């Protein structure tokens, strides 16, 4: 009972087709508040598709997804509600190139949450300090390094004060020397108690903060468990093989 009260994301037997292609084949997952989930698996296994169904950037065709007590359906109000409660960070950052860093961060709070501009800017400054780049507030995204852009993207999502943060390979478009600065921000966020779903192959991050890990292959969850379980004694051969491949370099 207590457990179900804490559940913030519930995914039950979700299927997704792209035309004829069956991308998600009955995926189920329960995520509790403050949990950090790491999702990994080979390319094309449906990790992005899965994480994007949670804020309805992709529509699922079968099964049930409930986020913070709101079921995702065709009802546009539910979708908007869920999107207000979930932040998302993309591999390609997707900052708005025509707006300054400050405008990138304050746009949604002002337009969607209807905050006064001054409040939005104050909070934006706090967030920029939290991600370590307050001095970049008035630059345009194109004038920042990849690592800085991704930190702005994180700050932009956090500005909406979401309950859940989704990350889709946030460091895979970055040069190696910038990966750490982004991971550090994410680790700090995880420790602050944010509920996080992270698609990543950064196993150091998983070891440091993940509560549970899910291995995806061919549109299904093959195996899940604590980082301890997964790294020490994976039950499935496919998991073991995949881990040995990505850990070898």
């Amino acid at each position, binding site marked *: 009972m207590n457990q179900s009260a804490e559940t913030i994301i519930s995914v039950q037997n979700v299927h997704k087709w792209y035309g004829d292609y069956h991308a998600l084949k009955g995926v189920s997952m329960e995520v509790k508040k403050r949990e950090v989930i790491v999702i990994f698996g080979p390319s094309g296994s449906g990790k992005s598709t899965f994480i994007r169904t949670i804020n309805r950037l992709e529509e699922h065709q079968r099964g049930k997804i409930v986020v913070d007590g709101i079921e995702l359906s065709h009802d546009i109000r539910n979708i908007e509600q869920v999107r207000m409660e979930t932040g998302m960070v993309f591999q390609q950052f997707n900052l708005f*190139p025509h707006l300054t860093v400050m405008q990138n961060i304050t746009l949604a709070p002002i337009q969607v949450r209807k905050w006064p501009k001054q409040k939005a800017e104050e909070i934006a400054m706090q967030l920029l300090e939290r991600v370590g780049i307050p001095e970049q507030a008035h630059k345009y995204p194109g004038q920042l390094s990849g690592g800085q852009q991704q930190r702005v993207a994180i700050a932009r999502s956090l500005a909406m004060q979401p309950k859940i943060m989704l990350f889709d390979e946030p460091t895979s478009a970055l040069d190696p020397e910038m990966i750490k600065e982004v991971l550090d921000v994410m680790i700090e966020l995880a420790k602050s108690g944010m509920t996080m779903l992270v698609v990543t192959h950064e196993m150091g991050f998983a070891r440091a903060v993940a509560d549970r890990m899910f291995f995806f292959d061919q549109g299904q969850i093959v195996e899940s468990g604590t980082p301890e379980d997964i790294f020490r004694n994976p039950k499935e051969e496919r998991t073991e093989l995949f881990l040995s491949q990505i850990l070898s370099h």
Partner: protein
Amino acid sequence: MTNLNSALPPLTEQITLLRWLRKNLFGSWYDALLTVLGLWIAYWAVKGFLTWAFTAAKWDVIILNLRLIMIGQYPLEQTGRLWLWLAFLVLLSGSSTGIWARESKYAAVVFLLPGLLALLPFSTEPRVWLVALTAIGLAGWVIGRAKPEILKRGVIAGWVISLPVIILLTHGFSESGTGFWAVAKTTLWGGLLLTFLLTVVAILFSFPLGVLLALGRRSELPIVRWFSVAYIELVRGVPLITILFMAQLMLPLFLPEGLTIDRVLRAMVGITLFSAAYLAENVRGGLQAIPRGQFEAAHALGLNSAQTMVFIILPQALRLIIPILAGQFIAVFKDTALVAIVGLFDLVGIGKTVLAQPDFIGLQREVYAFISLIYWVLSYGMSHLSQRLEERLGVGKR
């Protein structure tokens, strides 16, 4: 002899100039041939034109009809109203230049133009106004530079109301028939005045219409999409002149007895509807160039579709197509000349009436050369403005 020496550039520059000539104009034997041939053709064309312009041409026809070419039959008594809105526009342009192009110190030079025009053989009243325009433009520029933050809102508001102000002043509102504020019938509007009004109205109204049609074409609602596609394809499939004819000749057939729509208004509507279809396709091109990630990021932040369009997608798409938009607006400006065929007296139409006067028969070259010059100066101005805008908005892109 010493004079000649000092007029030559210093030695190093001479060498670089020679080098430049060699590299760019005489790089190989066919480059050299093309250069010589090009220069020869240019020489004959320019020489022929200049000889004609300064010896044979009878420019009197322009001087005597300048008023007609500028404003058509617009009543003399109310001409002051046109100067008034022109002064208003110049004031807005001046302060806008001061506010938004602060760093370009020479931008104000354009406002000397009216003052220079006053040197031409006008009568006293236009001369006074032209000098006043220069003073107003420069004053606006100085004030705009001095107090940009305070003036910004006012100037934007000024631009927003400028079209209604222009139309109202041009049209007048007193029904008494005489006096400064008397209504000036649209049948009397002509010349550059009419061309200008047709262009401005068509651009300002076709722009939002075109954006809406472009969005409609991408809409998820089938009816909206079909309507947009049908409209765009239908209008793009016919020449503007047929639309103008339909507006002038066929529209009255559909209207109830007694209800007539002003001929100038009909032309404005025709050009607007025509231009909107082309704009829609250009805007669609811009929209397609925006990566999907921009939509996704906006949606993920909770922005709805309308907010995503207004704040994220359209600003980027429109910026991308500024050069194309400028090209299209220039095309609209020049296309308005077609209204001459349906009997309105725009620049070209008034040119024809001037040439129909017995005194000026056979002076086509002078009249059309002058009209072309007006078109060219204004088209070039628009083109120049769009390039400045592009540079300005390019800040921080990429």
